[in-house]
């Protein structure tokens, strides 16, 4: 990126140029105004002086000549020059070395000489009775000096602003370029395949850092989603390969089996494998649907107490028939903003696990409590737990406790539980041994249900 193509450089340079041009315009206006004012002032002075001479010499040209001589002798007004000429053009009085114009009135630029030097004066010629003419002139040196001063000042300012503007544009452009380059480099590194790269922050907390932070957060989120997707694809590849191979083997067996009874058994086994596979697919799709958060569109206020006790009562006979005990401690009238069916499926998965993976005599407890804005739900048993693996990792797809590998299931139950909890913005935790328990804390959903 060259500097000239930098938007920031062009913008700041344009602003700089704008300021410089504005200064120039102000300068021209100020110059004109000052110039005019000074000329008017000079005209005014000449007019007053002329009137004064006429007043003093009211008795005729001789009087005026005397007045001129008095002034020149006193040299009170060094900047003013006088000349009185007679009807024939002869000088009567006054030392001003300039030709007296024949027509009365103001002459702005009257050349004259003083001390052997050609100069310019502003003058007023007045016609007197008897063909006399009186010339009063003031040197324009002051105006010229002022003009030059102003001109220099404004041109200087214009130049300085122009340089300053370009310098500022260059500096801002360079800084922006440098900071953006970091983001650019990160993006390019990621395009190049290094997804671990993040935008380097300056630590100043400025707007660039904020954008960088947001981009980093976005990258983290995308990273998680990608990791998730990668995990799922590899899980699917791995965990479906085994049952598909089994299915193929059983069909192969059936094909080569001559005994009709055994052939039928093999086909039934193959059909069972196929059904299992479909179940895994269906579970994966459901998890993906819930994780996609589309379920939230259908969320509404539900009576959680009712939903939880429905599931508990549905399981009670099965749990008791297996020689286990179920204790449901459910606070009534707990409302939640959510999806009843999903929450019931979540509890079902947990109770399924309790029924499948605990020995006789196990006590299963379901507890629902609301304290303020927090709703706590827990499904806990005092069974053998998941051993060393007992931790949040059990919420991942296809993760199964080694002990339970032999029992039916696909390791998707807790992944679904985790996805449903996440869709409800609930914090889900697996409690440490002894026993096995999953604890949920719903926060936002309770508030929304209260509205």
């Amino acid at each position, binding site marked *: 990126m060259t500097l000239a193509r930098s938007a920031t450089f062009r913008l700041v340079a344009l602003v700089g140029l704008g300021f410089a041009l504005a200064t120039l315009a102000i300068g021209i206006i100020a110059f004109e105004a000052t110039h005019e004012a000074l000329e008017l002032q000079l005209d005014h002075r000449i007019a007053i002086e002329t009137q004064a001479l006429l007043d003093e010499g009211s008795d005729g040209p001789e009087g005026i000549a005397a007045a001129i001589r008095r002034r020149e002798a006193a040299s009170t007004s060094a900047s003013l020059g006088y000349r009185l000429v007679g009807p024939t053009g002869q000088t009567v009085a006054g030392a001003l070395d300039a030709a007296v114009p024949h027509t009365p009135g103001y002459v702005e630029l009257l050349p004259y000489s003083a001390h052997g030097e050609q100069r310019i004066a502003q003058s007023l010629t007045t016609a007197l009775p008897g063909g006399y003419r009186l010339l009063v002139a003031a040197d324009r040196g002051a105006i010229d000096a002022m003009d030059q001063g102003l001109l220099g000042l404004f041109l200087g300012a214009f130049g300085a602003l122009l340089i300053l503007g370009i310098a500022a544009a260059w500096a801002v452009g360079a800084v922006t370029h440098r900071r953006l380059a970091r983001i650019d480099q990160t993006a390019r590194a990621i395009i190049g395949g290094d997804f671990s790269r993040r935008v380097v922050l300056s630590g100043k907390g400025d707007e660039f850092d904020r954008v960088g932070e947001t981009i980093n957060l976005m990258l983290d989120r995308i990273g998680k989603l990608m990791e998730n997707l990668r995990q799922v694809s590899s899980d699917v590849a791995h965990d479906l390969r085994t049952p598909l191979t089994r299915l193929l083997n059983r069909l192969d067996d059936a094909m080569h089996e001559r005994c009709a009874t055994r052939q039928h058994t093999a086909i039934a086994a193959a059909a069972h494998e196929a059904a299992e596979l479909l179940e895994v697919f269906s579970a994966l799709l459901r998890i993906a*649907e819930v994780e996609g958060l589309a379920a939230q*569109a259908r969320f509404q206020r539900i009576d959680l107490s009712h939903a939880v006790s429905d599931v508990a009562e*549905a399981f009670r*006979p099965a749990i008791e028939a297996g020689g286990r005990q179920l204790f449901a401690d459910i606070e009534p009238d707990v409302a939640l903003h959510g999806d009843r*069916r999903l929450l019931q*499926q979540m509890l*079902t998965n947990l109770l*399924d696990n309790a029924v499948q993976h605990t020995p006789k005599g196990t006590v299963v407890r379901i507890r629902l409590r609301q304290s303020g804005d927090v709703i706590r739900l827990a499904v806990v048993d005092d069974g053998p737990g998941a051993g060393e693996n007992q931790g949040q990792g059990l919420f991942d797809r296809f993760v199964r406790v080694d002990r339970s590998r032999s029992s039916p299931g696909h390791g998707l139950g807790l992944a679904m539980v985790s996805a449903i909890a996440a869709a409800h913005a609930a914090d889900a935790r697996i409690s440490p041994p002894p026993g096995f328990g999953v604890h949920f804390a719903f926060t936002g959903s309770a508030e929304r249900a209260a509205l």
Partner: protein
Amino acid sequence: MRILIVEDDADTSRYIARSLMELGHQVASSSDGRDALFQATEGTFDAMVIDRMLPGLDGLALVKALRAADNTTPVLMLTALDGIADRVEGLDSGADDYLVKPFAFSELAARVHALGRRPATTSEQAHLCVGDIVLDPYRRAVTRGGHKVALQPREFAVLAELMRHAGRIVTRTMLLERVWDFHFDPRTNIVETHVSRLRSKLNAGFDRDPIETVRGAGYLMRDAP
């Protein structure tokens, strides 16, 4: 029963038609939504099995069109879409029941039968009688041979569902959906354990078990022993 099958996959359509005919039904089939709309309007059917994804006019639109034309023939919708939203949409369109592919034929047959004889207007107040069992939905009371049988609410609901479909198979998933409103399949046999409790309460002091277990299909209550 006269049944119209609307399914664009020829294999599936043939399989369903053949199996239903084996059960003694008359079957007509269509593979296109518009054609199905025409057939359904022209002919009289006792039930329709409609696939959700169809060429021409999809299943949802077809059912909506039928209902808009005051056609009240019961509809069982078939679909490969297993999402929760899909199910809601399917039932909202006016379908009476919803079955996700793949399905066991016994499940389809049970559901078609349940549709076919569904009375036009279900009077909830009417007593249900099967053999010596009388169920009063209004008072939530059950008697067998004149003796009162005390049941838990879900046991009562299971019995009511079985009696309402007396003579026909009610599958495990139908009970899960209608009694518990569970649209997923728990691995725990909650239906079996409820039926078992219901049986022990219902059969106390009687020899005959009115609830027949049909292996691999569901449960059945017969009108006459």
